[in-house]
């Protein structure tokens, strides 16, 4: 294992894959000499040159659309959007074009592309630079959606996404970019798409969580362990396709479940995961209703106190777990 930041893990995944396969190109706004708005691609322009690391105009629709067109004709593009919020501008390219081509053309097209984008609040960037919009993409058959919460997962899943023959939405946590994690050193380290990870084993309650809320849940689980409460943490890592089996098995074991995401609660993916649990055989094992602990239904405000209050805090998460345990 070696220690590296979440951003470094993403860079390493891209660089290793680009060394391996000449058909991989990387495009986006200010990803070249600037190194990306969050510094994710620092040094890649120098290594791979402007033919493969391509600075684009500020044109999200054509960034995603051209990635789809390049993918369907034989390249394996990685495209970066500077913020997930700007995916709104790329929506037609992803939803009506990239996601549909294979099915709509009777299986005669492949669209091997990855669209990377940083999500999440906490950076003081206010309403148009802080959202978690994963549910929109999860609602579109034809797209795969990945949301890693550690550097190791980010690296292993990004490599898998680049090798995958489908359009993949790769959601990065901007607040984790500078956080250090342990990452396997093996260049062939891959995390299979569609496999959840039990981040902590436990017996009393299952917490399903993805994205940067994971670290908060881990802190709460540590604290509750001192009281003898055993929390199992399941990180789906991939939202589409979702590893339902691992989640359901965990809930059957613990009999209680909470689903946590940073995104706004209404219409969020936590609701989907919650329904997956209650529709399954795990329902018969539940000792309490499945609870969602999610962001408030509000645009992200600028003021830091208000901003922090939008998403589940450590206290909110602890309260939610106690609520489920005390039913």
């Amino acid at each position, binding site marked *: 294992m070696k220690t590296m930041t979440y951003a470094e893990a993403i860079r390493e995944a891209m660089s290793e894959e680009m060394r391996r396969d000449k058909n991989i*190109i990387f495009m986006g706004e200010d990803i070249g000499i600037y190194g990306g708005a969050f510094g994710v691609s620092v040094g890649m322009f120098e290594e791979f040159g402007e033919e493969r690391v391509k600075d*684009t*105009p500020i*044109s999200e629709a054509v960034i995603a659309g051209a990635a789809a*067109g390049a993918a369907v004709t034989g390249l394996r593009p990685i495209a970066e959007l500077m913020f997930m919020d700007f995916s709104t501008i790329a929506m037609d390219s992803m939803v009506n074009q990239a996601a549909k081509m294979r099915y709509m053309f*009777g*299986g005669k*097209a492949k669209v091997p592309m990855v669209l990377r984008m940083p999500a999440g609040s906490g950076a003081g960037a206010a309403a148009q630079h802080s959202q978690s919009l994963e549910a929109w993409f999860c609602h579109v*058959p034809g797209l795969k959606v990945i949301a890693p919460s550690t550097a190791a997962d980010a690296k292993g899943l990004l490599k898998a996404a680049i090798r995958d023959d489908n359009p993949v939405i790769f959601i990065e946590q901007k607040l984790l970019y500078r956080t250090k994690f342990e990452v396997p050193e093996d260049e062939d380290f891959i995390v299979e798409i569609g496999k959840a990870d039990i981040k902590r084993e436990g017996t009393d309650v299952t917490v399903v969580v993805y994205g940067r809320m994971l670290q908060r849940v881990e802190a709460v689980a540590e604290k509750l362990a001192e009281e003898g409460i055993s929390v199992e943490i399941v990180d789906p890592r991939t939202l589409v396709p979702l590893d339902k089996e691992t989640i359901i098995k965990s809930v059957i074991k613990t009999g209680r479940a909470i689903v946590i995401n940073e995104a706004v609660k209404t219409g969020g993916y936590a609701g989907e995961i919650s329904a997956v649990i209650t529709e399954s055989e795990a329902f018969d094992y539940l000792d309490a209703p499945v609870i969602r602990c999610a962001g408030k239904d509000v645009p992200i405000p600028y003021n830091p106190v208000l901003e922090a209050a939008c998403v589940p805090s450590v206290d909110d998460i602890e309260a939610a777990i106690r609520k489920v345990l005390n039913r």
Partner: protein
Amino acid sequence: MKLEKKELSIMYQRMNEARAFEEKVSYFFARGMVHGTTHLSVGEEGSAVGACMALNDDDLITSTHRGHSQVIGKGIDLNKMMAELLGKYNGYCKGKGGSMHIADVEAGNLGANGVVGGGHGIAVGAAMTQQYQKTGKVVLCFFGDGAANEGSFHEALNLASVWKLPVVFFCENNLYGMSTSIEKHMNITDIADRASSYGIPGYIVDGNDVLEVHKTVSEAVEHCRKGNGPVLVESKTYRWLGHSKSDANVYRTKAEIEAWKEKCPIKRFEDKMIKDKIFTKAQLDKIKKKAYEEIELAVKFAEESPNPPIESLLDDVYA
């Protein structure tokens, strides 16, 4: 580029195939024999066929919702195309695409598109592949006057011009975005004028003159192949029929439609061929007859083709 007699014959054949195909489709829709909707390009065959025939066989196209003439112009298996219109399993898209999504990716047809302006980005990306892999191939991107007002038009032409990508942006200006006339949807008369804002060549061509379209697009293709970047070609043409099957044609006059029918691209080609003594009337009639027979055979093939099995519903969502 001077066209050989053989190519002129193919040109005439494809224009007639397109006309015959759409007459047949129109007949089917009018009688409720197929479901959904369709967007016919009758009257625009010269534009689509002339443009496509300026390509090499291995060049690429992106097509539009009004794309039957375009894909026939590129050269297509009419049987599989008609089968797709009828929603059959051995249609181009196994019955899942229909009229608006005819695609043959292997043959360089990257698909018709149900979204106005939806092909712009795909064409740019396809051209990136050609440039990066140094294939020497060119992408012909079809779109209409309506799509010239989509944001994707600007993003795509700008990016293609900056990167000098081999794309011919080919605008079939048929004067109406659905019911809205061009006077009401843009403040200029010639869409080709927009080329200057991207620093690329812009041409205007009489879209009902298949030979002129072919000549102009051939020049544009040559420009792209030399690595000089994209070109915008505006082809002025007209659709004789409504926007789609729901169209009652209340926004334009009979006189206007009739005047454009006088400029029929197929008739104009015939007159020119006979006048220049390249083909006799009898020779042309023979080609036309063959085109109509091909369509009858395609209908037979399509009608005898199986429907997709219900088990195929969930196939091919993912690779």
